[in-house]
């Protein structure tokens, strides 16, 4: 099973002030906050970790048929960042998910999977918001934010 999440960075900067007092404490544990504060591009790391948590949560909530807002229970680890890609893990209760992200100056996109081999198989399509009737193409996971629509096929 897979989940995906896209963050339109321009939209995120309009909608959210992550520097607001208390904001990071409600979402990120100390280790994650250290990853944010030790990087040069802090805002990229904030939304990268956020998209990791969101994409993993989408798998978990679908499997457990459960809704909750518990960003601190989703714990990111093993984050490795290359030029504009990243890999990592997200733990949630007793589950462990594998993530693969891409980012540039416009957006951050993460795919999470329950099995690492699923990440190798996915086909990703990122496009403008609802330009076509994407439901007919039967994506395994859909995410939209701001100007972007992300479709992932398995």
């Amino acid at each position: 099973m897979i989940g995906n999440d896209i963050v339109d960075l321009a939209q995120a900067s309009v909608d959210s002030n992550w520097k607001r007092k208390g904001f990071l404490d409600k979402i990120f544990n100390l280790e994650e906050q250290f990853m944010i504060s030790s990087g040069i591009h802090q805002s990229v790391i904030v939304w990268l970790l956020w998209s990791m948590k969101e994409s993993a949560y989408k798998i978990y909530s679908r499997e457990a048929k459960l809704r909750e807002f518990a960003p601190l229970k989703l714990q990111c680890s093993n984050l490795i960042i290359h030029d504009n890609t990243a890999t990592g893990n997200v733990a949630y209760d007793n589950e462990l998910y594998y993530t693969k992200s891409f980012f540039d100056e416009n957006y951050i996109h993460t795919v999470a999977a329950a099995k690492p081999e699923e990440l190798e198989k996915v086909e990703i399509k990122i496009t403008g918001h609802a330009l076509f009737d994407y439901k007919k193409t039967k994506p395994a996971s859909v995410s939209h934010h701001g100007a972007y629509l992300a479709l992932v096929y398995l």
Partner: protein
Amino acid sequence: MDRAELIARLTPIIATYAQDKDAVASINETTDFIKDLKINSANLVDVILDVEEEFDIEIDNLSMERMLNVSAALEIIEDKLKTK
């Protein structure tokens, strides 16, 4: 503080982040923050921080987990106001 007063103080907070402004006009206890008001999940944190400021309470992580609709929010606020 009765429920009507609580809703009156809660409404402007959630209205700030609701993307479906029509749904704000018909807010009631069953209104869901994400499904009905289309509040994006990052802004749920802002709702929680604003509620903490407005009512001078602290919302713990366990309460935050279930604060996804108006009725849960009211219960949590009432509960925290009682133990203040």
